[in-house]
Each structure stands twice: as structure tokens, then as C-alpha cells.
């Protein structure tokens, strides 16, 4: 019953204009003090065919903070990230067990439409992947298909606001009609972030967003992530320990498909409670 209510409530928020929804989300967030749990995963296991990639992962991700997933390659951190917006649904032989609740609603409930879920949970990928369309259309595509705004001034406003939030507006405002693929790598990645923001999500998932960028572009994206956490819950997968330390407030360490440790980032990097975390952070493996 509770699940149903929450779904409907979120649906209502979706139907209102982006501005109202944003204001509402803000009001709700300011009403509740502290960092309440946004995403609650319990006993999540993921299978690719017969092979189990993730073992009973349970984790609470707080709202309006940056949570970093760290761990060696193949440890399942990206797999888990892609469970949060059901991106794994697109992989044929992939099956997910357990529950992931966003604001109390289980996203693997059959009543949940993944299309609506992905509007609330935006995603930024490892390699910048703007559509081979104009910068404007890259941003406008999401709002258009979700019916948030029709073409015209309302859409122009969304495009401008999204680009401003992604700290890209000043660089591209004079060439919105040029292809997004013509931007530099860092600009492309910020364009992808703007594209994710444009549909007004609560949560932004980032899968190694800086691994294809140079250090200057990386710095800009990290700066942006830091600004965005005032409004969005951000989950970031990263290979770089320094990056995790710089941008995240909480960190989760994955190893061989298991979640080993979740803690405040500061604490984990100075005084980890598990030996494996200690070994990974100090560079003994990974």
C-alpha cells in the first residue's frame, strides 16, 4: 500500500512543470533535517546468466550527498550502480534479486515503469556520449519525451537552466545549434550531466565520469559535482581514490562482488575498519 502511494506521489511530481517539481523537492528536503536515506538497497544480488556478479549487497545512500563506490576492476560497483536506474534491464541475460527502494518505493516492483524511474534517476556514463545532434537538442530531448515542456520559451528556459547548472552555459550559449559531438571531451561530459539534469531527477548516477578526461576537465567536473550535491543525490563510481576523497562524503568499498565497507569518506581513507579496504587504499592490490 505504501509503495503504491509513493509511486503515485512521484508520478504527480513528474506531471507538474519542472520548476514546481524542483521547488517541491526543495521544500520537502528542507522540511526534513539532516540527510535522510534516499536509496535503500537490501540483499541485492545480480546474475549474468549463471554467473553471480553481486552478492547480497545492502546499503543506504543518503540524500543530497555524494556517495563514492570504489574497488578494483570487476568488483561489481558499476553493476550495482546500473541496478539503481534498472539499466541492467537492457542486458538480456541479467537478473536482479533483492530490493532497492527509492523514497520507500521498491524500484523492482512490477508496478514501476523503468521509463519513469530513469527520469528520476539520471545517469552519466564513462565515455561522454552526447547524441549526434545540436547542443540544444541534446538537452531538450529528455524534457521533450517526458512531456515536461513543449518547444518554445519554456524549453529554452530548461535548456539554459540545465546548462547553467552544469557550468557549461557560458561556453556554449552562442552555439547551441552546433553538434554536441563537436565539443571537447570535458565539455561533452558536462553536456551529458546537463542532459541528465534537464529531466529534473532526484538522483544522478555517474559511472567513472572522468576516466576519459584530462586533469583540467576532471577538475571542472569534480567542482560541478560538488555544487550539484546541494540539490541532487549523487552516486559516483570511480577508480581514482583521490577523486573519491575529493568529491564524496561517504564511500563504499566493493570487492569481488561483495560490499565490504561503507563509511564516511574521511574515516574510510584514514582509518578503514576492514583489512581489505586498508590494502586497497594503500595500493597493495587493485
Amino acid at each position, binding site marked *: 500500500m505504501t509503495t503504491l502511494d509513493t509511486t503515485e506521489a512521484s508520478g504527480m511530481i513528474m506531471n507538474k512543470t519542472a520548476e514546481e517539481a524542483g521547488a517541491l523537492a526543495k521544500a520537502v528536503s528542507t522540511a526534513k533535517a539532516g540527510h535522510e536515506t534516499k536509496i535503500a538497497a537490501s540483499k541485492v544480488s545480480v546474475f549474468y546468466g549463471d554467473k553471480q556478479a553481486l552478492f547480497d549487497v545492502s546499503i543506504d545512500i543518503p540524500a543530497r550527498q555524494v556517495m563514492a563506490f570504489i574497488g578494483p576492476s570487476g568488483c561489481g560497483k558499476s553493476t550495482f550502480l546500473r541496478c539503481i536506474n534498472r539499466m541492467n534491464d537492457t542486458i538480456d541475460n541479467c537478473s536482479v534479486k533483492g530490493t532497492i527502494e527509492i523514497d520507500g518505493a521498491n524500484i523492482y516492483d512490477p508496478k514501476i515503469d523503468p521509463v519513469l524511474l530513469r527520469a528520476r534517476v539520471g545517469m552519466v556514463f564513462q565515455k561522454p*556520449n552526447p547524441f549526434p545532434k545540436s547542443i540544444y537538442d541534446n538537452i531538450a530531448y529528455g524534457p521533450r519525451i517526458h512531456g515536461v515542456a513543449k518547444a518554445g520559451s519554456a524549453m529554452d528556459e530548461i535548456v539554459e537552466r540545465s546548462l547553467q547548472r552544469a557550468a557549461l552555459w557560458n561556453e556554449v550559449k552562442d552555439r547551441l545549434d552546433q553538434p554536441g559531438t563537436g565539443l571537447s571531451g570535458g565539455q561533452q561530459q558536462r553536456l551529458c550531466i546537463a542532459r541528465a539534469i534537464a529531466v529534473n531527477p532526484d538522483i544522478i548516477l555517474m559511472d567513472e565520469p572522468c576516466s576519459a578526461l584530462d586533469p583540467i576537465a576532471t577538475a571542472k567536473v569534480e567542482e560541478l559535482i560538488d555544487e550539484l550535491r546541494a540539490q541532487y543525490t549523487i552516486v559516483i563510481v570511480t577508480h581514482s581514490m583521490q577523486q573519491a576523497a575529493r568529491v564524496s562524503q561517504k564511500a563504499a568499498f566493493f570487492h569481488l562482488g561483495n560490499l565490504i565497507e561503507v563509511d564516511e569518506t574521511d574515516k574510510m581513507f584514514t582509518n578503514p575498519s576492514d583489512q581489505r579496504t586498508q590494502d586497497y587504499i594503500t595500493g597493495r592490490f587493485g
Partner: protein
Amino acid sequence: MSDTATQGTGRRAWYEPDAKLKRRHAADRRLRAYGIAAIVFALAMLATLVVTIAITAAPAVTQTMVTLEVEVPEGAVNPSDPRGGSYQKILNESVARIFPEVDTPRELRELRQLFSNGGQYALRDKVVADPSLIGRTFEVVFPLSDIGDQLHKGVIDRDLPRDQRRVSDEQVGWYDRLVEQGRISAPLNWGLIFNADSRFPELAGLWGALVGSFYALLICFLVSFPVGIAAAVYLEEFAPKNRFTDLIEVNINNLAAVPSIVFGLLGLAVFLNFFGMPRSAPIVGGLVLSLMTLPTIIIATRAALKAVPPSIREAAIGVGASRMQTVGHHVLPLAMPGILTGTIIGLAQALGETAPLLLIGMNAFITAAPDSMFNPSTALPTQIYIWADSPERGFTSRTSAAIIVLLGFLVCMNAIAIYMRKRFERRWS
């Protein structure tokens, strides 16, 4: 280790090649020579083909015409119904004025053999277009018959003894007199393109075949393009990967290799006999050709869809596009150049396909271009087949000319395909 290395090279300096290395290089050179030889051979064959066809076709570039003064007497044609006049008689009279000495029936028949049967129609069309010509004398230009044409072009050698050539001495003499009087001209042979087929080579043209091929290709495109894309999109983007879809994939690939005559038999059995569709009609030809083109388009479309990077699909799904939106808004538009290239190549194949059209009767002798895709018609390749089978000398060069027209269309279509591939390829990277 270093000891054995120095021993191995012996007294030779390190840069001097040994026999084994020389053999390796020789093998390299041989391989390259074989490759060049193969290409030269292929090019020589192609050049031979093209040059042979061009030389054979050359006489068909022009058509020998004769100019006659014709008097249409007042009473001979009814001005209110100019179509009904006896124009052959009027024409015969003006020929007789040039050759008054010809009077025996045998000679008269031979004389008329020199002029095309189409002369009366040229005259009729002129009078129908302008009835005020009745009662006046005016000039009519119309083709010489095949033997006159061949005589003019030197294909019939007048120096051969009479029993070895197809024209009599009298006919040669009459022809020479026409030349002396400046009545013979040889303009460009537009009739080859704009006339429909005819029993007489000097009147036969490709228009009916061109229209028939156009209709057939149009049907083929309208059927195979949407069906092919729908099938490929489903198989590539939506279908689960299991044994059943594997089976379908294998069968589609096999279908592309099925001999075309088998599709013709299928069309004969299904479209003509079962559905009772009109025989020889471009619509049936188009449907049969679309059966053949479908596998090509499906395979090309799947390849084009596969070439679209998965990151684009992820991006669209990531902002909440449904699968259909992902395909419709992003993947398909990006794959379109590849799809169109494959489609054009498939259509070019279909344009040149003969066997299935023979089976559904598109090799009929039809002297008018089809009004619609339901009328009997020929197609370019079947027209070539018909002409190649005809005994008149004039058809030899016209067959080659028709082959050149067909090749021209094929080259154009393939050029468009290559241009599109170059122009649009990998724009997203």
C-alpha cells in the same frame, strides 16, 4: 646466450641477408605480382566486355531517316477524323513519284521494303496534330527500314555478291538515289529511349521496358524497404537471443543466396496462380523482386544497426527514452545511411534480375508502355533478352545499346550508394 648469437651469425655482418630471408622477400614479391596479375586480368576482362558492347552498340546511336515530300489530297483524309486516313497509300504514291520507273509488283514490294512500316504513323501523327496540312504538300521525316539502316551504316556490305547479302541490286540503286537527292539523314536515335517495343528494329525502343522496370522497382522498394527495416529492427533491437532467432538469422542469410529463378517459381505459384494477379504486370514483378531484395535489406540494416555505438542507446535509455523511442529517435536515424546504401545496392540487383521476371511473363511482346503497374509490360533485362533473341540485324546493336542503358542505371545507383556511404559514415564519433 650472446655467445650462441654471435656463433649463429657466423662471419656474416648482422645486416647481410641470408638465403632464408631472401626467399622470404622473394615470396613477398611473388605474392604481390600474383595480386597485380589478377587485377590486370580482371580489368582486361572488364575492358573487353565494355569495349565489345560499346562497339556493337555504336550503330544504334543514330537512326537512318528519310525525308519525303508528301501530298495529302483533299479527299484522301477526312478532316474531322484524320486518324482514319489510308496513309500507307499516300506514302506509297509519294515514293512512286521519286521512282517512276518502278512498276512490277515484285520491284514495288522490294522498294517498299526499303522504308519503315512506321512511316505511315509518322505521317498520320503529323496530320492529326495539324489537320490544315490536308490538301498541301509537305515534308515527312521517318526511319528507313532495317535493311536501309544497315546499308547506310555499312553493316550490310554492298560489295558482296547478291546471293550473300540481304538487299537486291535494285534496292542498293534506289538507296543510292535517295542519298544523291539528299533525302537520307542520320540523327541521334532518340527513338531507342522513347519508343516502345516493336517488331521492326528501326521502330523498337526501351520506353516500355523503362516504365515497366520503374514500376517494378517502385513496388519492390515500397514492399521490401519497410518490411526489411521492421524485420531487422525487431531482430537486432528487440528479439531475445535464443535458438529460434538464431535459426531465423541463418535462414535469412540462406535466403539471400537462393537462386533468383526459385523466387520466380514462387511468384508464379503464389502471386499468379493462387492470388490470380495479372500476368506480365510490373506489380507482380515488383513483388517477386522484393522477395529477393528483402534478405539483402535485412542483412544491410542489421549491420548498420550494429554499427551504431551502444553508448548512444545507453544515453537515450538513461534519460528515460523507451526502447521504441531509443530506436526511432536515435539508432535508426544514425543507421539510415547504411540502410539506404544497402537498399540501393539491393534495388540495383533487382533491376538487373532477369530469371524471375521471365517466369512471370514479363518477356511478353508488348508494343506500348504500361499505363499502370497492373498492365502487361517488359522490364529492362527482359527487353534485352527479347531483343537478343530477335533475328533482325538491327536488334544486334540495339541489344547492346539496351545493355549500356541498363549498365548506366546500375552504375548510377551504385555510385549514389557509395557517395552516401562516404558522405554520412560515422558521423557520431
